[in-house]
């Protein structure tokens, strides 16, 4: 099909969709941009719930037994439920929908220069399944016995026997919600991969694809390859719960360790599933605001391949004290330490990109740099935990919690704000307020460190996770330790309060902000060549691509950027 006929059909296509009713435009859309926003807004609402849960249980830890303002009394069972669902929500209903499904949907077709995803109806269906999964999860909080409280890892037999967990229906609905969410992302993932493989603009070679798109696709493939066994495991656990089989119950010949293997075989690649989209988004942001070509495009890409491959052989480092063979533990120590090499290399490429650039400290750039700084601490402390000798002491302590949040907070929250502030002009056609954006950045970033740095110390002092009230344990009730807990909780409250600045900025800018031009950041990738917000069908004439996405400050050119679709001078 020639380019001309494509363009003609395109125009007919967008005219055809001109008069969509509100219902079909915003509630049951086929447009990838609206579906992406549906994911993002659902994810943001779930983030509010997850943050509220964190507030409630952190208050309980700092002021045990006192009534939490805006919540009430946190009982021991409720505490477990809050901790469990905070983890579940933040990973499966915030990180995945916002970073992968939300921004993946929004930016993939725009960045590769086509009019939509290859399967728009499949896309809509995957969002609807995702929405159903979120509703099932919320429903599980209100059934008899309350929500599931057996930790987000759901180890059996606690998760499989109602007499142990005391949440008969809570556990099953939780599991059902997670399984539905997996199905939704598998369907969405097939769409992402196929779109990127088949529907790129003419001229866009493999090495001309923006890193953000590459990494989302790699993440989706990792997810697909790791989640399968856990889906099988979820079916088995569900049958253990409801039919009375004993796949994971030693009393019936089953093995609880099997669940741990299935869970972590998924759970560790999952870390990279959510990390890679943020890494990719940050790659695009730092090149734009350093006005420099990405250092080592291919190296960055190959390190992502290496990370993805290695991520499948590190899972048992979560199980060093679970009773696995110490000889096997040694193997996993080696692979775990090994995986830090490609990731460190990726980090160095990013830092080398910044070196010598003309850095503009815009809000998205602050978030991007904040991500690199915070994730560095998360990555380095991970090397401690990967060594089995140290992990035996640190296991299930607050050191793990602090390490985990130094990886996932930058990935999920900082990455989300980086992406939102960067693409906000494109999504809503308005600029966000920079001053409020910067206040919000510092008001989040500083309290974040004040919240989680003390947890490293508490972990070193031997404080175990998943404990309702530390004051019941003389060793842990010491004043200096309790002060750290109170300080961490207060930092959380400050951080949560600063989010109101963002909410205000977000909604006020959406309606009253300065009108955004097509390309406010002077970036190269294709989404900036069209109006903000892009019309249905995205491109008036579908673009052709002549170069990679990171041609900034090319010597001999008048402007310091070079859009991918600008034809070369004859």
């Amino acid at each position, binding site marked *: 099909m020639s380019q001309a006929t494509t363009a003609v059909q395109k125009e007919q296509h967008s005219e055809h969709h001109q008069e969509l009713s509100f219902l079909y435009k915003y509630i049951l859309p086929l447009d990838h941009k609206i579906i992406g926003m549906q994911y993002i807004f659902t994810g943001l609402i779930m983030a509010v719930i997850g943050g509220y849960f964190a507030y409630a249980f952190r208050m309980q830890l700092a002021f045990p037994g006192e009534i939490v303002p805006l919540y009430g009394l946190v009982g021991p069972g409720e505490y477990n439920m809050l901790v469990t669902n905070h983890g579940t929500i933040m990973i499966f209903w915030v990180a995945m929908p916002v970073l992968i499904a939300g921004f993946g949907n929004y930016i993939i077709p725009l960045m590769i220069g086509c009019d939509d995803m290859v399967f728009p109806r499949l896309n809509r269906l995957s969002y609807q399944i995702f929405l159903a999964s979120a509703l099932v999860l919320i429903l599980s909080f209100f059934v008899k016995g309350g929500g599931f409280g057996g930790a987000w890892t759901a180890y059996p037999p606690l998760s499989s026997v109602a007499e142990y967990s005391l949440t008969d229906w809570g556990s099953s609905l939780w599991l059902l919600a997670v399984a539905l969410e997996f199905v939704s992302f598998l369907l969405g993932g*097939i*769409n992402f*991969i196929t779109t990127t493989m088949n529907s790129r603009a003419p001229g866009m070679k493999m090495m001309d694809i923006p890193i953000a798109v590459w990494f989302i696709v790699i993440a989706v493939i990792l997810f697909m390859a790791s989640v*399968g066994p856990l889906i099988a495991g979820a079916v*088995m656990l569900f049958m253990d719960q409801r039919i009375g089989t004993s796949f994971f119950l030693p009393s019936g010949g089953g093995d609880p360790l099997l669940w741990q293997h299935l869970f972590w075989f998924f759970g560790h690649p999952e870390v990279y599933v959510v990390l890679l989209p943020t890494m990719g988004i940050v790659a695009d942001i730092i090149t734009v605001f350093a006005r420099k070509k990405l250092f080592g495009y291919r190296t960055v890409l190959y390190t992502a391949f290496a990370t993805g491959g290695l991520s499948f052989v590190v899972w048992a480092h979560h199980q060093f004290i679970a009773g696995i063979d110490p000889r096997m533990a040694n193997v996993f120590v080696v692979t775990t330490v090994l995986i830090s090499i490609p990731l460190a290399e990726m980090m160095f490429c990013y830092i080398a990109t910044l070196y010598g650039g003309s850095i503009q400290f815009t809000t998205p750039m602050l978030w991007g740099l904040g991500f690199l700084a915070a994730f560095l601490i998360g990555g380095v402390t991970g090397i401690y935990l990967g060594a089995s000798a140290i992990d035996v002491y640190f296991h299930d302590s607050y050191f793990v919690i602090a390490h985990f949040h130094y990886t996932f907070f930058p990935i999920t929250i900082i990455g989300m704000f980086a992406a939102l502030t960067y693409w906000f002009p494109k999504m809503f056609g308005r600029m966000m307020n920079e001053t409020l954006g910067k206040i919000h950045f510092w008001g989040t970033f500083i309290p974040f460190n004040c919240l989680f740095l003390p947890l490293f110390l508490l972990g070193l002092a031997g404080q175990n996770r998943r404990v309702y009230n530390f004051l019941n344990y003389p060793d842990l009730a010491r004043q200096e330790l309790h002060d750290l807990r109170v300080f961490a909780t207060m930092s959380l409250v400050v951080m949560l309060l600063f989010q109101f600045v963002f909410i205000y900025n977000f909604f006020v800018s959406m309606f009253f902000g300065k009108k955004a031009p097509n390309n406010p950041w002077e970036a190269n990738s294709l989404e900036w060549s069209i109006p903000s917000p892009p019309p249905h069908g995205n491109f008036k004439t579908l673009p052709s691509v002549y170069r990679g996405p990171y041609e900034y400050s090319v010597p001999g050119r008048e402007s310091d950027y070079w859009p991918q679709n600008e034809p070369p001078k004859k």
Partner: protein
Amino acid sequence: MSMQGPIATHRQATGIPTGRLAVWWLLASEIFIFGGLVLCFVLFKLNGTPGFEDASLTSVAAGAINTFVLLTSSLTVVLAHAAIEEGNVEKSFKYIWYTVGFGFVFLGIKTYEYTGKIIHGHIITENLFWSFYYTMTGLHALHVIGGMIIMAIISFDIKKGYNFQRVELIGIYWHFVDLVWIFLFPLLYIANF
């Protein structure tokens, strides 16, 4: 092929039609689901878990007939694809329904097997072998039923003259369902390792 939907659907940067590419990725994800289940089964079996000697109670004859039925249905779905390539809608329609028919035979024999086992007290909770037996064959049977429903829908679509390419796509899927059975049959019925 009708030109519906976005332009994106009709691009082929890889040279592979979009639908076929997506089906291959779908099957890739399915491989990991069934692969995980099969791996768990094999690990329990190698571990000498009590109850796995019940594998000798499964009916090899019924399983073998079902293997034959499924393999034949894979042939008919290939013939349906060959017919639609020639543009022969009637012939393709006929072969699709032969395939659906073989699907019914397969499910019938499966039902007969299940009934016999349950009458003899081998229910899903008896021991780990039967848990795996019902889970694995049940999940497979669900895939068979899903395939049959989709085939029925496609058969009427091609009569109306559109979505001819979907005959090939459901064929690829059907071969996968067949292949899963090729793994399940020796594992659950024959193997004694």
